[in-house]
């Protein structure tokens, strides 16, 4: 191996280690923080401590954890399932049905991706308060159901769905909705899995819109609770880190359960 290629290899490895460190260290710090007191954390301690149990106990005393998790799960699961249904139906429709206006409508949708959420926040608030939906789960979930990014993602992946499978299903006597349910959905399960992880994470971590539409403590999601812990005059970082660890667990669980399918789905797999 020449000196140049050895240097190049060393440099590549160094870059990768740096990237890995930048990605993993905050996660480690969060876990280490959960085991330390606020003073230790602000004092710059990075190693594991002994304050985990008191931090957890204090968190469970301060927060109605089952209720908060229930709220978060309703929002995350509800949002994920409804978005998957709407986006995959739309993606399937856009790809499968020929129409002169199809690409114009799709182009219009893509254009809407450039509108920032901040610009839609107030109109959405006015709309939802107008129809009396404030402080409901549906209010959190609804604006994200017709996710343009997800429709785009499903349409792109549907291009890999063999049209002859649809023809074969039609010959076998299936109606369009049956083809979607019995053939398209099982065949595209990797695409669904990848979308499910992204959507679950997005809905679970949603902060700004829930903050706007949720008005009572009994409806608060875990992200709002974590944020509220940080707003005290002297924030208890150990407590905050415990809350963060707990808030991260479901996302990690979903990712590990669907990991293989996630990779296939992101590669546009049809299995």
């Amino acid at each position, binding site marked *: 191996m020449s000196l140049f290629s050895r240097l190049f290899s060393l440099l590549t490895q160094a870059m990768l280690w740096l990237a890995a460190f930048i990605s993993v260290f905050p996660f480690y710090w969060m876990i280490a923080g959960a085991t330390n007191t606020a003073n230790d954390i602000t004092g710059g301690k990075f190693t594991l401590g002994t304050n985990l149990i008191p931090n957890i106990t204090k968190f469970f005393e301060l927060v109605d954890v089952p209720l908060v998790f229930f709220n978060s799960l309703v929002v995350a699961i509800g949002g994920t399932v409804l978005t998957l249904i709407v986006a995959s139906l739309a993606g399937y429709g856009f790809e499968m049905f020929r129409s002169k206006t199809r690409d114009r409508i799709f182009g219009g949708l893509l254009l809407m991706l450039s509108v920032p959420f901040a610009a839609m926040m107030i109109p959405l608030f006015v709309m939802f308060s107008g129809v009396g939906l404030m402080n409901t789960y549906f209010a959190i979930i609804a604006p994200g159901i017709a996710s343009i990014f997800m429709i785009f993602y499903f349409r792109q992946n549907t291009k890999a769905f*063999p049209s*002859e*499978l649809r*023809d*074969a*299903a*039609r*010959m*076998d*006597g*299936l109606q369009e909705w*049956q083809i979607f349910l019995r*053939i398209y959905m*099982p*065949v595209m*399960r990797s695409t669904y899995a990848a979308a499910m992880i992204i959507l679950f994470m997005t809905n679970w971590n949603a902060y700004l819109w829930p903050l706007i539409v949720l008005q009572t403590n009994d409806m608060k999601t875990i992200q709002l609770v974590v944020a509220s812990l940080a707003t005290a005059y002297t924030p208890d970082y150990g407590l905050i880190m415990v809350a963060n660890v707990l808030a991260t667990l479901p996302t990690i669980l979903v990712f590990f359960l669907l990991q293989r399918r996630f990779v296939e789905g992101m590669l546009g797999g*049809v*299995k």
Partner: protein
Amino acid sequence: MSGLKLTGLRKNYGAHQVIKGVDLVVEPKEFVVFVGPSGCGKSTLLRMIAGLEEISGGDLTIGGVRMNEVDASKRGIAMVFQSYALYPHMTVRENMGFALKYAGESAANIARRVNEAAKILELHKLMDRKPRDLSGGQRQRVAIGRAIVRHPEVFLFDEPLSNLDAELRVQMRIEIARLHKELQTTIIYVTHDQVEAMTLADKIVVLREGLIEQTGAPLTLYDDPDNQFVAGFIGSPRMNFLPAVVKNGALTLPEYDGQVIPMPPVAAKLAEGAEVTVGIRPEHFRTGGSASLDLTIELIEHLGGESFAYARQGKANVITIATGTGRNWASGERIQATFDPASVLLFTAQGARVR
């Protein structure tokens, strides 16, 4: 088994007409092959018969019943697709029984019919495997099995052997011929491979640009084509076409140094100076005859049992010559390629056959 009748069948995509009025009768139990170059409309025509494409005009009857608006699943048709189109998430058994399950057949009946088809196609050992665990040939057999279990009136095959390698293609071709004999069903088969068409068909339908050029038995199309297109399409290697001029009751070949060959026996009177095209099949050089062409061999292909010489004179088009074993021929050699003038076909400048 039912026959089919296509009367003035048309298909438009907007202003673009892809099938321009097709009239065809397919007899019960007949094996009909649609051939033609890419984009000629053969697959579209098949999909119209299947009910996968709407019919823009004309009538389609199957077993005497008009089927234009009838749903694909209710036409009594089963189709085998080029890419097999097996459901990847189902086992072979589930794939084969799927249509019957949807038609509301009892589990016992489904099992009986699936096993019956599996026996015909020797699929027993593969029944619980998923399509991804099968080879190309096995997948194709499953696809055929899926069609058989439905006991259709008509089988449609859309280029079913295109995705297989050469050896498997020959095997499957024999298998399909055997199945036709055994099941005694009406089959419509689309291919661009004229060898498949010649070996399988009772009747070949040659299509070009959405129209039927000629319909007939394989050897009729080979021996007696209606036009230059059919003559060129049927037969492998392709027929040689040489531009010629009628002069003094013989044919002069201006591109071949003005060589003269005798006029083949045709009833039509050709005017002096008329421009025509001479068609000579490569294999007609093998048997020899009283007519000949002086040519220089450019290249020789030895296939073992047969050799093909590619020869020309000057800048004229290359002529393919089947030489039999032809092992003593060499590139650059000047030869006299002999043939029987009676085997030569004549076409007008517009491509119509002169008989």
